[in-house]
């Protein structure tokens, strides 16, 4: 293992967290829009 692979894995994990958060926000927008329409 090169000594910079830990940096890559850390950075990739953080990007994965950001992407999951983005998907969560998209789903939250969808849910709020649906609730508004139903009301």
């Amino acid at each position, binding site marked *: 293992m*090169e*000594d*910079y*692979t*830990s*940096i*890559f894995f*850390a*950075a*990739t994990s*953080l*990007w994965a967290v*950001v*992407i999951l*958060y*983005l*998907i969560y*926000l*998209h789903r*939250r*927008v969808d849910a*709020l*829009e649906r*609730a*508004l329409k139903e*009301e």
Partner: protein
Amino acid sequence: MLKYAALVLAFLLFTYGSYNVLFVFEDISSPGNPPMAKLYRNVFFHVPINVSAFLGFTAALVASILYLHTRRLRYDLIASSTAKVGLLFTTFTLLTGMVWAKPAWGAYWSWDPRQTSALIMWFVYLSYFTLRNAIPEKERRARASAVLGIFGYASVIFTLLSTRIFPSLHPPTLGLRLEPEMGMVLGLMITAAVIVFFSLVSLEIKIEKLKEAREVR
């Protein structure tokens, strides 16, 4: 599916950049600091996140000034959303910096001026949200957080200048010299981070607006 276009573009740019960083770019010559010959690669992950964090706090500063000037709550919404994403990205900047510092400096945390000033900045913007949560009344909350959003920006300037003011192990900001193809990949990685930044901010703003629309009903 179009709404995920920005996300897919950012993902492709990040994947292309990571491939180059790991498999194409060779070690650089660093006789003064041998570990940096390999560890310079962190620049491609750490800097784009940091640029987006500074972008967030700068946008929060501009929106705070505009709020105090116009008293329109939409600027307060922009300020809080950009500061929120800026705080998230600062957390990631601190983490990627720590992971790099371990092999480069021998410890995750060594109270280097850049680490310390970035941590102070993180606490300043954390207090921004503590303040917002403590004030229920909208106008008062917007006014108080706009003032903190303006004065808190001093911590961003202090972080940027910390490596010039104090003796620091951290490479100086804007002092980086890269080969043209490395510079191009760094530019692409910064673009990916900025795309993600704007996607997060626009979604945060949309959610707050939808919540308000529900409250009005």
